[in-house]
């Protein structure tokens, strides 16, 4: 059998999942103080619904979304609001956040209700519950889920895909979730299928997770409309467009979205969050995060409340070993390097990765030697070397015709580049310039 994958490009970074792939998910202790940013999603930030000194219960709505592309935010712990002010955020700057001092009681609000027959509500009611629960894409992109579930009339959706690829090295949060909570993922997929009124559901998993493939194949055995697709281990197999191409053979057009080819893709963590929201009435206040890397004393997969500072989590994992070099929110290919351990876990924090100083290979950026490896590696088949040279030279007019806006910033080019060129950085800069010019 031909293994499924995307046709061109891709790289094979060391998987490095051995740190945590066999470790069951553990609950992290509740933070003494939670820092809940009012922006945890792509789109408009929330307005605070609470005031300083007010007390809140777990699951209470504390951030009101502004606009359609936004998602409400809920209190992850019970306690007293001690501040509403700018705080460090994993995206690299300070963002207005609600700070909650815990009362240590984990007191839940009464409003939370169970729905045993979770497929009985109407699609509109299901979608309302998903919106109410503040669910966003948990693979890291944090795009509000209800928006993805509201395609315009003319886009006919026929397939919902749940993304269990987890192609980022080191990360195992999705893997453990699939092995330990398959019923939540399958239930979530069924809810998504009902909301979108589609007949076909798919779960894509890389073949380096045979246990997850087995568990989910068993969990979907009695569901004829849902299939599990084992996929070749190749980065970035889990990128939305590449995943759709691998499973369905459909190519999302340049500048388009999955809905243009009749598909909606959701991460396994998102599917599980959807299930918990509908079945148990639990808003998105916690997630699975992999704390890993050679710089962590005891790597773990954690179920952790949103708002828990990185410093608390690292302490729970035995602290740092050696001289810390880099702390990354997310995986090594697309994650963001952190400047402070005061940043909190947000809805999109798929992992906390720590490299020691000695694990980092800091290189000079050398001139491009035109080896063409970045072109071979690029899953979007653009020419990163050329874009990099143009950006360095300030030739921004040439970027768009060379498809700079098609870049998904997966990092394959910079990973492979023997000249150590910061290609993703250069392309991002070029993209921003092009978009700024378009706005004018």
């Amino acid at each position: 059998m031909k293994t499924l994958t995307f046709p061109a490009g891709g790289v094979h970074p060391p998987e490095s999942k051995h740190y945590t792939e066999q470790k069951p998910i553990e609950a992290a202790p509740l933070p003494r103080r939670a820092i809940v940013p009012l922006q945890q999603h792509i789109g408009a930030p929330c307005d605070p619904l609470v005031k300083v000194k007010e007390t809140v219960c777990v699951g209470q709505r504390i951030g009101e979304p502004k606009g359609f592309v936004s998602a409400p935010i809920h209190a992850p712990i019970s306690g007293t609001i001690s501040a509403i002010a700018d705080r460090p955020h994993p995206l690299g700057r300070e963002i207005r956040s609600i700070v909650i001092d815990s009362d240590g009681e984990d007191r839940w609000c009464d409003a939370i209700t169970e729905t045993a027959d979770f497929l009985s509500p109407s699609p509109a009611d299901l979608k309302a519950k998903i919106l109410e629960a503040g669910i966003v894409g948990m693979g890291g992109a944090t795009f509000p889920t209800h928006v993805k579930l509201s395609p315009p009339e003319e886009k006919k959706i026929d397939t919902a895909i749940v993304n269990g690829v987890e192609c980022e090295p080191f990360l195992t949060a999705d893997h453990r979730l699939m092995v330990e909570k398959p019923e939540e993922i399958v239930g979530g997929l069924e809810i998504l299928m009902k909301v979108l009124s589609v007949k076909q559901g798919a779960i894509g998993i890389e073949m380096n997770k045979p246990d997850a493939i087995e568990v989910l194949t068993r969990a979907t055995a009695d569901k004829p409309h849902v299939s599990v697709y084992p996929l070749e281990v190749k980065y970035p197999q889990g990128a939305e467009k590449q995943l759709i191409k691998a499973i369905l053979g459909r190519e999302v057009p340049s500048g388009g979205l999955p809905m243009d080819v009749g598909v909606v893709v959701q991460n396994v963590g998102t599917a599980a969050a959807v299930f918990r929201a509908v079945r148990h009435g639990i808003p998105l206040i916690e997630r699975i995060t992999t704390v890993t890397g050679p710089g962590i004393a005891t790597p773990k997969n954690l179920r952790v409340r949103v708002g828990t500072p990185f410093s608390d989590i690292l302490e729970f994992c035995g602290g740092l070993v050696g001289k810390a070099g880099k702390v990354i929110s997310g995986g090594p290919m697309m994650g963001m390097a952190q400047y402070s351990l005061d940043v909190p876990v947000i809805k999109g924090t798929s992992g906390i990765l720590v490299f020691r100083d000695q694990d980092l290979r800091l290189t000079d950026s050398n001139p491009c030697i035109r080896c063409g490896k970045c072109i071979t590696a690029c899953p979007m088949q653009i020419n990163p070397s050329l874009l990099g040279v143009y950006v360095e030279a300030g030739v921004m007019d040439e970027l768009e015709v060379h498809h700079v806006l098609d870049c998904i910033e997966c990092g394959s080019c910079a990973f492979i580049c023997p000249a150590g060129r910061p290609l993703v950085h250069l392309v991002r800069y070029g993209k921003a310039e092009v978009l700024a010019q378009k706005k004018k």
Partner: protein
Amino acid sequence: MEANRKETAAQEETKAAAAPPKKGEKAKKPETSSDAFILSASPHISSGESIRSLMNDVILALVPGLLVGIYYFGMDAVRVIAITTASAVAFEAGTQRLMGRPVAVSDMSAVLTGILLAMNLPSGSPWWICVIGSAVAIVVAKQLYGGIGYNIFNPALVARVVLLISWPVQMTTWPEPKPFFQRGVDTVTGATALGKMKESLLLQGDLSGIADIRWIDPFLGHTGGSLGEISAVALALGGIYLIARRVITWHIPVSYLGSVLVMAVIFHQIDPNRYAPPMFHLVTGGLMLGAFYMATDLVTSPVTYRGMLIFGVGCGIITMVIRYWGGYPEGVSFAILLMNATTPLIDRWVKPKTFGTTVQRAGAAE
């Protein structure tokens, strides 16, 4: 589409705040904070390959060819290799210093250029030929064009051609190959196989002059020629190593050797008295050295696979045109340099097929 716009706008805000780093700038730690972490853009891991590791791999791949050269040409070969390599490194460092560029001889590219130049010279070359060659390769063909990555023409080949045109006698005086244990004091010189072919065609009007050359000799290395080009098998072995290590891809060597083979077969069929057998063309001259090590030079060849195939076929055709009808017996150097000149054009025409550009975007027509 509203959603898409918002998404990209937010990405732009959050991700692209910093300016691109200047060339040669290192990722630095902030010095203000005691628990300062290194900040840099993703990705945070790399393949571990570097310019230096690529160059070292090519040098390693050249070792069999160099050993055959030393076996047949003795200490003369060692002398030429030593002089070109040392002077290439010296010119590289000197020019970089003079031009105010960072001295980067540790990237091994100058060492490789020096070795490749030696392999393209007769083993009896006087020291000053070696030094002038290195100067032309490094100073003129590389650094004056902007240094590594910016040169249009293969530096070692530019040097070889400049030397060949300027000092044709020295550059075509080929010591006879002789295993070192049989070597006497006097060096006997003779013509290369391709030289004998051209001479025979000119004087006798047929190929009788190469009738006694068995293909196995140049295949193994027992033939006259530049010190690093004589053994087809040793060079091909190194080339296969480079393909296996993914330093180069098969596209240029296969299309180059393939087009030479096809042309040789066709013309040998047409007139076996004027056109030598295909095997003769494949194993003689600088073809193996050119196809695996010179034409595949990363900087001066196209960046896409399809571009590489065009490039290789062009090299093959020009090589054979010069061998058949040109004034020089061998055309590999000229062929590669001419195709080097077309590389920017090829790269302009042949672009990767970007994902999603061959399908129509839904609603785009409305």
